[in-house]
């Protein structure tokens, strides 16, 4: 017998819960039912279900599933999913239930135990979903192509408010874009509308490299006395950055010493950025939300002044 799923808005959390509850006692039945329940789901929904189910498996369930080749394969597939960047769908196009399930699955799979506990206890948390974007995009002024989601599981609400965001710095803050002679410090930055040089010189080449917040979980508190006459949020413990040491606009394996755990301090804030119409995100590494939707973002957080922020690199 399979769960009757609404084809337009399937209750993926229930499917995952049912699997986890049966896996220890009846692994073959659980696997059979899982396959039947998920066959009609989209790849994103199936991945969401897998994340939710995996987070609920206890050691007895894992041992029972590991007793069969199909169960082992499923567990291996789910485990390897943790190591891959997740696909980030257009969240505003999903239903509230799908959005909450997707985001909760990501937090349960990639958050720290503290963030996971907060989610399970119904405390509000924030999820940042980053799509890799070159610092050189939009002439170095950043792109609002990421999401910051306010997840609220309290009182059975299970809401997920999605906001456009920028989680990576724009090259307008890169020393490579600074004028030099008749050109720039780095010719690859000729198109960038230069603003100011920020960052830290990681590799000793004499050029400060811009940094982005490294994916992970950070605990934020409200920044006292505001930033640009609005509420803003600051990490309570030292953050870790990745720096673009080769200046190609990306933060990846081509930057072998990109991890910077010391020079950022707690300076990568969550604050408002330029409006979407202005085309300037104001991010030199901070997590910025467009000024025109920032009041709604603050309203969705209510009076909450501290929270876990789980940042994930997706695509």
């Amino acid at each position: 017998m399979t769960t009757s799923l609404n084809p337009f808005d399937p209750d993926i959390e229930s499917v995952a819960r049912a699997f986890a509850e049966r896996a220890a006692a009846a692994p073959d039945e659980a696997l059979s039912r899982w396959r039947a329940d998920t066959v009609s789901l989209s790849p994103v929904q199936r991945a969401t279900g897998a994340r939710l189910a995996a987070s609920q498996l206890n050691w007895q369930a894992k041992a029972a599933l590991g007793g069969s080749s199909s169960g082992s394969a499923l567990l291996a597939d789910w485990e390897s999913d943790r190591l891959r960047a997740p696909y980030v769908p257009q969240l505003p196009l999903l239903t509230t239930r799908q959005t909450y399930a997707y985001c909760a699955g990501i937090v349960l799979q990639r958050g720290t135990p503290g963030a996971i506990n907060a989610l399970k206890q119904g405390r509000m948390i924030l999820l940042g979903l980053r799509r890799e974007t070159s610092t050189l995009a939009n002439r170095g002024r950043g792109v609002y192509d990421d999401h910051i989601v306010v997840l609220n599981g309290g009182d059975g609400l299970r809401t997920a408010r999605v906001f456009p965001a920028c989680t990576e710095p724009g090259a307008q803050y890169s020393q490579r874009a600074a004028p030099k002679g008749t050109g720039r410090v780095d010719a690859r930055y000729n198109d960038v509308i230069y603003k100011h040089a920020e960052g830290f010189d990681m590799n000793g080449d004499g050029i400060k490299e811009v940094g982005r917040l490294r994916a992970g979980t950070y605990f934020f508190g409200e920044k006292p006395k505001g930033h640009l006459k609005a509420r803003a949020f600051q990490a309570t413990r030292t953050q870790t950055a990745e720096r673009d040491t080769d200046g190609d606009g990306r933060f990846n394996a081509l930057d072998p010493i990109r991890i910077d755990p010391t020079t950022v301090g707690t300076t990568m804030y969550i604050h408002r950025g330029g409006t979407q119409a202005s085309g300037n995100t104001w991010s030199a590494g901070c997590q910025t939300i467009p000024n025109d939707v920032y009041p709604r973002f603050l309203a969705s957080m209510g009076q909450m002044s501290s929270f876990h922020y789980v940042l994930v690199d997706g695509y």
Partner: protein
Amino acid sequence: MATDHRLRNAALLLATAGFATLASCAGTGDPALPATTTAEPPASTCSFGAFVAETDPAGLNVRSAPNATAKVLGKLPPTFVEPSMNYGVRVEVDVVGARSGWFLIRNARDNEALTDRPARPMFSGEGWVSGSKLTVKSQADVGRARPSPKAPVVLRIGDNETFDNDVVIEAGRLADCNGRWAQVEFADQRFAAKDRSSLKIDAAARAGLPPGRFRAWVDRLCGIQETSCDGLAGGDPAP
């Protein structure tokens, strides 16, 4: 209220016309132009960004020497405030030296990202302005007695709060500078009562100053208004 805005806007227009006139003499708005020669060298040299805290529609005079009677080289426009915005955008400058409470600045510019309109004409060469018209944004969480990370702490803002919030930026004025450090002077009266209560001021910060004033040295100076600066916790860049 609307009349106030109209009057102020008219005053700003007139003032802006004045800046343009002076600017045409001083080579305004082109950072590639050579710096203006100033008569007197600074007593201390430094290198950081600061903001012009000027509300007078007539703007701030930039002078050829560190005193109020020296020749006016040009003007800097006042803080930009539009009625629909609830914050002011200050002109940004690079500070390169100080003498007797005056600061040698250059490369003044508008923050177009924040004003969302074309830059106003202004004097962008090198010249002196009073420290009482300059403020800084420090991401430090303590103020010290001397410009050294080993100097005693004489000022804290609340519990582990950094100095880069709206209240502290508004309340501070430049008193001196040294390298990447700025000495900032505060007045008690510039803090609202609720903010004043969170200040932890050592007696050394008030020594030798008129009642109600205190000073501290801060580093981790961030020269941009719209966002924070990362990498400052690492000190100077690697050689």
